C-alpha cells in the first residue's frame, strides 16, 4: 500500500518556504541599503 500525498500539501510547503526566503532576502536587502547609505 503506497501513500499518495495531495498536491496542495507540496504546493503549500513550497509557497511557505518561498515566503520565508522572500522575508529573509528582504531583511538582508534593507540592511544592505541602510549600510551603504551610512558609509
Amino acid at each position: 500500500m503506497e501513500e499518495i500525498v495531495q498536491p496542495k500539501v507540496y504546493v503549500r510547503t513550497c509557497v511557505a518556504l518561498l515566503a520565508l526566503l522572500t522575508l529573509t532576502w528582504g531583511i538582508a536587502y534593507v540592511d544592505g541599503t541602510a549600510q551603504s547609505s551610512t558609509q
Partner: protein
Amino acid sequence: MSTLTSPASENAFVAQQFDDIEQQREAAKLGMWIFLATEVLFFGGLFLGYTIYRFTYGQVFVETSRKLDVLLGGTNTAVLLISSLLMAFAVRAAKLDQRRMLTWLLIGTALLGCVFMCIKGVEYHKDYVEHLVPGRNFEWHGADPHSAELFFWIYFAMTGLHAIHVTVGIGVMLVLALLAWFGRFSHGNHNPVEIAGLYWHFVDIVWVFLFPLLYLVGHR
C-alpha cells in the same frame, strides 16, 4: 491522503533476493538514507570548519560576506526550492503511473538544476572579475587579507562541492527522464525515482544552509 494498491505485475521488477517489491523498496530507501548520512558527515565537517573560522575571524567574515551577491544567492535558493517541488510531484506521478507527466517533471527538475548552475557560473565569473578567487589573483583592500582569503577558500570549497552534487543530480534526473519515457517505472517500480528524489531534496537542503551562512552572515 489516499492510498494506492500495487498491481500484481510489479513482481516482474522484483530482484531475486527480495520477497516482494515492498521489501525491495525499503532496502533501496535504507541504502539511500545511509548514503545521505555519509553526505551529512561530509558536509558536516565543512560546516564545522566554517563555524570555527566564523568565530575566530568574526568581523572579517562579516566584511567578506558582503561581497557576495545576495540577489543571485536568493534567486538560486528559490530555483532549488521550486525544483524540489517538481521532484516531489515527479515521485507522486511515478506512484500514480503517470508516465508522460513523470518524464516532464524530471526534465523540469533537471532544467531548474541547470538554471542554478548557470546563475552560480555568473556569480563565480563576477567573483573572478573582482579578484575574489583565492590564489595569486586574490585582492583584498580591507583589513586582514589572509582571513578574507580564507573565507573565500571556504566559500568556493562549499559551493563548489555543492555544485558537483547538483551536476550529478542533473545527470541522474535526465537518465531517469529517459527511462521514464520508455515506461521503466510503471507497475509500482518507482523505487529509483523515489530515492533520486531523496538525493535531490538533500542537495536542496544543503543549499538552504549554505545560503544564510555564506551570503547573509554580513547582514544583521
